[in-house]
Protein backbone atom coordinates (compact mmCIF):
# COMPACT_ATOMS: atom_id res chain seq x y z
CA UNK A 1 0.00 0.00 0.00
CA UNK A 2 2.71 2.44 0.92
CA UNK A 3 4.54 1.54 -2.25
CA UNK A 4 1.42 2.24 -4.21
CA UNK A 5 1.02 5.65 -2.64
CA UNK A 6 4.67 6.45 -3.23
CA UNK A 7 4.41 5.36 -6.82
CA UNK A 8 1.40 7.57 -7.41
CA UNK A 9 3.08 10.48 -5.68
CA UNK A 10 6.27 10.16 -7.71
CA UNK A 11 4.32 9.73 -10.94
CA UNK A 12 2.12 12.69 -10.10
CA UNK A 13 4.98 14.99 -9.31
CA UNK A 14 6.92 13.90 -12.37
CA UNK A 15 4.01 14.29 -14.74
CA UNK A 16 2.96 17.64 -13.39
CA UNK A 17 6.53 18.87 -13.50
CA UNK A 18 6.98 17.74 -17.09
CA UNK A 19 3.63 19.22 -18.06
CA UNK A 20 4.30 22.59 -16.48
CA UNK A 21 7.83 22.75 -17.85
CA UNK A 22 6.60 21.98 -21.35
CA UNK A 23 3.77 24.45 -21.07
CA UNK A 24 6.09 27.20 -19.94
CA UNK A 25 8.81 26.42 -22.46
CA UNK A 26 6.39 26.42 -25.37
CA UNK A 27 5.24 29.84 -24.30
CA UNK A 28 8.67 31.40 -24.62
CA UNK A 29 9.78 29.66 -27.76
CA UNK A 30 11.76 31.47 -30.42
CA UNK A 31 11.34 31.17 -34.16
CA UNK A 32 14.00 29.06 -35.85
CA UNK A 33 16.29 30.58 -38.43
CA UNK A 34 16.47 27.46 -40.57
CA UNK A 35 13.40 26.71 -42.64
CA UNK A 36 13.24 23.15 -43.87
CA UNK A 37 9.90 23.61 -45.69
CA UNK A 38 11.61 26.09 -47.98
CA UNK A 39 14.42 23.66 -48.65
CA UNK A 40 11.90 20.93 -49.35
CA UNK A 41 10.05 23.14 -51.81
CA UNK A 42 13.29 23.94 -53.56
CA UNK A 43 14.30 20.32 -53.88
CA UNK A 44 10.90 18.98 -54.90
CA UNK A 45 11.49 19.08 -58.66
CA UNK A 46 14.47 16.75 -58.28
CA UNK A 47 12.70 14.35 -55.96
CA UNK A 48 10.83 12.35 -58.59
CA UNK A 49 7.46 12.80 -56.91
CA UNK A 50 5.19 15.76 -56.50
CA UNK A 51 3.86 15.07 -53.01
CA UNK A 52 6.17 16.60 -50.47
CA UNK A 53 5.70 14.09 -47.66
CA UNK A 54 6.41 11.19 -49.96
CA UNK A 55 9.47 13.03 -51.14
CA UNK A 56 10.69 13.44 -47.56
CA UNK A 57 9.91 9.86 -46.64
CA UNK A 58 11.32 8.09 -49.64
CA UNK A 59 13.90 10.45 -50.94
CA UNK A 60 15.21 13.20 -48.66
CA UNK A 61 15.00 11.11 -45.51
CA UNK A 62 14.71 7.68 -47.07
CA UNK A 63 17.28 6.32 -44.64
CA UNK A 64 14.86 6.93 -41.75
CA UNK A 65 12.29 4.91 -43.63
CA UNK A 66 14.78 2.12 -44.26
CA UNK A 67 15.46 1.82 -40.54
CA UNK A 68 11.77 2.10 -39.78
CA UNK A 69 11.10 -0.91 -41.99
CA UNK A 70 13.83 -2.66 -40.08
CA UNK A 71 11.97 -1.86 -36.84
CA UNK A 72 8.87 -3.39 -38.32
CA UNK A 73 10.89 -6.43 -39.32
CA UNK A 74 12.22 -6.78 -35.78
CA UNK A 75 8.67 -6.91 -34.45
CA UNK A 76 7.65 -9.39 -37.14
CA UNK A 77 10.59 -11.63 -36.34
CA UNK A 78 9.79 -11.67 -32.63
CA UNK A 79 6.20 -12.48 -33.51
CA UNK A 80 7.36 -15.41 -35.61
CA UNK A 81 9.73 -16.56 -32.90
CA UNK A 82 7.16 -16.43 -30.12
CA UNK A 83 4.28 -17.67 -32.22
CA UNK A 84 2.42 -20.67 -30.87
CA UNK A 85 3.69 -23.98 -32.05
CA UNK A 86 1.08 -25.79 -34.16
CA UNK A 87 0.31 -27.90 -31.11
CA UNK A 88 -0.40 -24.87 -28.95
CA UNK A 89 -2.38 -23.13 -31.61
CA UNK A 90 -6.09 -23.14 -31.05
CA UNK A 91 -8.01 -25.31 -33.49
CA UNK A 92 -10.14 -23.37 -35.95
CA UNK A 93 -10.61 -20.06 -34.22
CA UNK A 94 -14.24 -19.15 -33.74
CA UNK A 95 -15.39 -15.83 -35.09
CA UNK A 96 -16.44 -13.71 -32.17
CA UNK A 97 -17.66 -10.90 -34.35
CA UNK A 98 -20.63 -11.68 -36.51
CA UNK A 99 -19.83 -9.59 -39.50
CA UNK A 100 -19.25 -12.08 -42.23
CA UNK A 101 -21.37 -10.51 -44.90
CA UNK A 102 -20.20 -7.03 -44.05
CA UNK A 103 -16.62 -8.11 -44.26
CA UNK A 104 -17.15 -9.86 -47.53
CA UNK A 105 -18.52 -6.70 -49.00
CA UNK A 106 -15.98 -4.36 -47.60
CA UNK A 107 -12.84 -6.32 -48.36
CA UNK A 108 -12.67 -5.69 -52.11
CA UNK A 109 -13.39 -2.08 -51.39
CA UNK A 110 -10.50 -1.89 -48.95
CA UNK A 111 -8.17 -3.48 -51.48
CA UNK A 112 -9.21 -0.85 -53.98
CA UNK A 113 -8.67 1.90 -51.45
CA UNK A 114 -5.24 0.55 -50.73
CA UNK A 115 -4.33 0.46 -54.38
CA UNK A 116 -5.53 4.01 -54.76
CA UNK A 117 -3.58 5.20 -51.73
CA UNK A 118 -0.42 3.62 -53.03
CA UNK A 119 -0.89 5.21 -56.41
CA UNK A 120 -1.89 8.56 -54.99
CA UNK A 121 1.15 8.70 -52.75
CA UNK A 122 3.38 10.28 -55.34
CA UNK A 123 1.09 13.21 -55.97
CA UNK A 124 -1.37 13.43 -53.11
CA UNK A 125 -1.72 12.29 -49.54
CA UNK A 126 -1.29 8.54 -49.31
CA UNK A 127 1.51 6.09 -49.79
CA UNK A 128 2.91 2.79 -48.77
CA UNK A 129 2.13 3.02 -45.08
CA UNK A 130 -1.46 4.02 -45.45
CA UNK A 131 -2.01 1.52 -48.24
CA UNK A 132 -0.26 -1.23 -46.36
CA UNK A 133 -2.19 -0.62 -43.20
CA UNK A 134 -5.51 -0.56 -45.03
CA UNK A 135 -4.66 -3.90 -46.60
CA UNK A 136 -3.61 -5.23 -43.24
CA UNK A 137 -6.85 -3.92 -41.81
CA UNK A 138 -8.79 -5.82 -44.45
CA UNK A 139 -6.94 -9.01 -43.60
CA UNK A 140 -7.56 -8.45 -39.90
CA UNK A 141 -11.25 -8.03 -40.53
CA UNK A 142 -11.31 -11.24 -42.51
CA UNK A 143 -9.46 -12.99 -39.74
CA UNK A 144 -11.87 -11.67 -37.14
CA UNK A 145 -14.75 -13.01 -39.11
CA UNK A 146 -13.12 -16.40 -38.95
CA UNK A 147 -11.74 -16.46 -42.44
CA UNK A 148 -8.06 -17.25 -42.30
CA UNK A 149 -7.20 -16.15 -45.81
CA UNK A 150 -3.63 -15.64 -44.87
CA UNK A 151 -1.23 -17.15 -42.43
CA UNK A 152 2.23 -15.75 -41.94
CA UNK A 153 4.25 -18.58 -40.49
CA UNK A 154 7.51 -20.41 -40.87
CA UNK A 155 7.00 -21.30 -44.49
CA UNK A 156 9.60 -19.91 -46.83
CA UNK A 157 6.91 -18.16 -48.84
CA UNK A 158 5.75 -16.22 -45.78
CA UNK A 159 9.24 -15.23 -44.88
CA UNK A 160 9.94 -14.08 -48.42
CA UNK A 161 6.90 -11.81 -48.36
CA UNK A 162 7.84 -10.44 -44.95
CA UNK A 163 11.27 -9.32 -46.12
CA UNK A 164 10.22 -8.48 -49.68
CA UNK A 165 9.83 -4.75 -49.17
CA UNK A 166 13.03 -4.41 -47.24
CA UNK A 167 14.87 -6.49 -49.83
CA UNK A 168 13.78 -4.28 -52.70
CA UNK A 169 14.67 -1.22 -50.67
CA UNK A 170 18.08 -2.66 -49.85
CA UNK A 171 18.74 -3.73 -53.41
CA UNK A 172 18.07 -0.22 -54.60
CA UNK A 173 20.30 1.08 -51.82
CA UNK A 174 23.11 -1.30 -52.71
CA UNK A 175 22.63 -0.47 -56.36
CA UNK A 176 23.10 3.23 -55.75
CA UNK A 177 26.22 2.51 -53.73
CA UNK A 178 27.67 0.21 -56.35
CA UNK A 179 27.04 2.90 -58.93
CA UNK A 180 29.33 5.11 -56.89
CA UNK A 181 26.48 7.27 -55.66
CA UNK A 182 25.55 8.02 -52.07
CA UNK A 183 23.21 5.56 -50.43
CA UNK A 184 19.72 5.79 -51.98
CA UNK A 185 20.66 8.64 -54.28
CA UNK A 186 18.36 7.82 -57.18
CA UNK A 187 19.27 8.89 -60.68
CA UNK A 188 16.87 11.84 -61.26
CA UNK A 189 15.33 10.27 -64.33
CA UNK A 190 14.46 7.08 -62.46
CA UNK A 191 13.58 8.57 -59.14
CA UNK A 192 9.85 8.48 -59.62
CA UNK A 193 9.82 4.92 -60.89
CA UNK A 194 12.17 3.66 -58.23
CA UNK A 195 10.15 5.29 -55.48
CA UNK A 196 6.97 3.76 -56.80
CA UNK A 197 8.62 0.38 -57.01
CA UNK A 198 9.90 0.60 -53.46
CA UNK A 199 6.53 1.78 -52.27
CA UNK A 200 4.72 -1.06 -53.98
CA UNK A 201 7.05 -3.61 -52.44
CA UNK A 202 6.79 -1.94 -49.05
CA UNK A 203 3.02 -1.90 -49.24
CA UNK A 204 2.92 -5.63 -49.65
CA UNK A 205 5.37 -6.30 -46.84
CA UNK A 206 3.86 -3.73 -44.49
CA UNK A 207 0.45 -5.23 -45.01
CA UNK A 208 1.67 -8.75 -44.39
CA UNK A 209 3.80 -7.80 -41.42
CA UNK A 210 1.11 -5.74 -39.73
CA UNK A 211 -1.33 -8.58 -40.23
CA UNK A 212 1.19 -11.10 -38.94
CA UNK A 213 1.68 -9.04 -35.81
CA UNK A 214 -2.01 -9.45 -35.21
CA UNK A 215 -2.33 -13.02 -36.35
CA UNK A 216 0.77 -14.42 -34.70
CA UNK A 217 -0.02 -13.12 -31.25
CA UNK A 218 0.12 -16.14 -28.96
CA UNK A 219 -3.24 -17.77 -28.35
CA UNK A 220 -2.23 -20.50 -25.98
CA UNK A 221 -4.14 -20.82 -22.73
CA UNK A 222 -2.36 -20.65 -19.43
CA UNK A 223 -3.70 -24.03 -18.43
CA UNK A 224 -2.47 -25.64 -21.60
CA UNK A 225 0.78 -23.80 -21.45
CA UNK A 226 3.62 -26.15 -22.24
CA UNK A 227 6.10 -26.98 -19.55
CA UNK A 228 8.16 -23.86 -19.16
CA UNK A 229 11.17 -23.82 -21.36
CA UNK A 230 14.33 -24.07 -19.35
CA UNK A 231 15.35 -21.05 -17.41
CA UNK A 232 18.49 -19.47 -18.70
Amino acid sequence: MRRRVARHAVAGVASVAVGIALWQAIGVRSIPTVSLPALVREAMPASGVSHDITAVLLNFRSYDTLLEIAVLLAAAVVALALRDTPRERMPASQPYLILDTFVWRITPLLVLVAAYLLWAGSTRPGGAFQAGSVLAGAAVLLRLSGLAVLSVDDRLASRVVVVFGLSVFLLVAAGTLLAGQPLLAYPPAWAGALILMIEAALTLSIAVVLFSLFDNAPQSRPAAAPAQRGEA
Partner: protein
Amino acid sequence: MDGEANGMTISLAFDWVLGVVLVATAAGALFSKTLFRGVVLFVVFGLLMALAWVRLQAPDLALAEAAIGAGLTGALLLDAIGHLKSRSVTPSHNDDDAVKGST
Protein backbone atom coordinates in the same frame (compact mmCIF):
# COMPACT_ATOMS: atom_id res chain seq x y z
CA MET B 1 -12.23 40.96 -43.70
CA ASP B 2 -14.73 40.57 -40.98
CA GLY B 3 -15.98 37.31 -42.49
CA GLU B 4 -12.50 35.93 -42.64
CA ALA B 5 -11.87 36.83 -39.03
CA ASN B 6 -15.17 35.24 -38.19
CA GLY B 7 -14.16 32.11 -40.04
CA MET B 8 -10.95 32.01 -38.13
CA THR B 9 -12.72 32.45 -34.86
CA ILE B 10 -15.16 29.72 -35.71
CA SER B 11 -12.47 27.30 -36.80
CA LEU B 12 -10.38 28.14 -33.75
CA ALA B 13 -13.42 27.53 -31.64
CA PHE B 14 -13.75 24.17 -33.31
CA ASP B 15 -10.10 23.48 -32.53
CA TRP B 16 -10.71 24.37 -28.91
CA VAL B 17 -13.63 22.01 -28.72
CA LEU B 18 -11.68 19.27 -30.47
CA GLY B 19 -8.76 19.82 -28.13
CA VAL B 20 -10.95 19.54 -25.05
CA VAL B 21 -12.69 16.47 -26.39
CA LEU B 22 -9.33 14.90 -27.26
CA VAL B 23 -8.12 15.39 -23.72
CA ALA B 24 -11.38 14.13 -22.30
CA THR B 25 -11.38 11.03 -24.49
CA ALA B 26 -7.77 10.34 -23.65
CA ALA B 27 -8.57 10.68 -19.95
CA GLY B 28 -11.44 8.28 -20.42
CA ALA B 29 -9.23 5.84 -22.28
CA LEU B 30 -6.51 6.02 -19.67
CA PHE B 31 -8.56 5.93 -16.50
CA SER B 32 -11.76 4.12 -17.41
CA LYS B 33 -13.07 1.50 -15.03
CA THR B 34 -12.89 -1.38 -17.41
CA LEU B 35 -10.14 -1.99 -19.84
CA PHE B 36 -12.56 -2.74 -22.64
CA ARG B 37 -14.11 0.68 -22.38
CA GLY B 38 -10.64 2.14 -22.24
CA VAL B 39 -9.69 0.55 -25.50
CA VAL B 40 -12.90 1.57 -27.19
CA LEU B 41 -12.30 5.11 -26.05
CA PHE B 42 -8.76 4.82 -27.32
CA VAL B 43 -10.08 3.96 -30.77
CA VAL B 44 -12.32 7.00 -30.57
CA PHE B 45 -9.30 8.99 -29.47
CA GLY B 46 -7.46 7.77 -32.56
CA LEU B 47 -10.22 8.91 -34.83
CA LEU B 48 -10.29 12.31 -33.13
CA MET B 49 -6.55 12.50 -33.58
CA ALA B 50 -7.10 11.92 -37.29
CA LEU B 51 -9.42 14.89 -37.21
CA ALA B 52 -6.78 16.93 -35.43
CA TRP B 53 -4.27 16.02 -38.12
CA VAL B 54 -6.67 17.29 -40.72
CA ARG B 55 -6.88 20.53 -38.78
CA LEU B 56 -3.09 20.62 -38.73
CA GLN B 57 -3.10 20.34 -42.52
CA ALA B 58 -1.59 16.88 -42.39
CA PRO B 59 -3.91 14.63 -44.37
CA ASP B 60 -1.29 11.91 -44.67
CA LEU B 61 -1.13 11.69 -40.94
CA ALA B 62 -4.89 11.69 -40.72
CA LEU B 63 -5.02 8.66 -42.99
CA ALA B 64 -2.24 6.89 -41.18
CA GLU B 65 -3.68 7.66 -37.76
CA ALA B 66 -7.09 6.37 -38.74
CA ALA B 67 -5.72 3.22 -40.34
CA ILE B 68 -2.86 2.40 -38.00
CA GLY B 69 -3.34 4.38 -34.82
CA ALA B 70 -7.03 3.78 -34.40
CA GLY B 71 -7.63 0.79 -36.63
CA LEU B 72 -4.78 -1.61 -36.22
CA THR B 73 -3.69 -0.67 -32.73
CA GLY B 74 -7.31 -0.83 -31.68
CA ALA B 75 -7.70 -4.26 -33.20
CA LEU B 76 -4.52 -5.47 -31.55
CA LEU B 77 -5.59 -4.18 -28.16
CA LEU B 78 -9.14 -5.46 -28.44
CA ASP B 79 -7.94 -8.87 -29.49
CA ALA B 80 -5.49 -8.90 -26.61
CA ILE B 81 -8.23 -7.98 -24.14
CA GLY B 82 -10.38 -10.75 -25.48
CA HIS B 83 -7.55 -13.16 -25.08
CA LEU B 84 -6.44 -12.06 -21.64
CA LYS B 85 -9.95 -11.78 -20.31
CA SER B 86 -11.36 -14.98 -21.69
CA ARG B 87 -8.50 -16.97 -20.25
CA SER B 88 -8.35 -15.18 -16.96
CA VAL B 89 -9.82 -17.26 -14.18
CA THR B 90 -10.64 -14.33 -11.98
CA PRO B 91 -14.07 -12.78 -12.43
CA SER B 92 -13.39 -9.89 -14.69
CA HIS B 93 -15.74 -7.27 -13.34
CA ASN B 94 -12.73 -5.05 -12.89
CA ASP B 95 -9.84 -6.24 -14.90
CA ASP B 96 -7.63 -3.43 -13.82
CA ASP B 97 -6.23 -5.29 -10.93
CA ALA B 98 -6.83 -8.80 -12.15
CA VAL B 99 -3.13 -9.08 -12.27
CA LYS B 100 -2.66 -12.52 -10.89
CA GLY B 101 -5.44 -14.94 -11.50
CA SER B 102 -6.06 -17.16 -8.54
CA THR B 103 -5.62 -20.74 -9.53
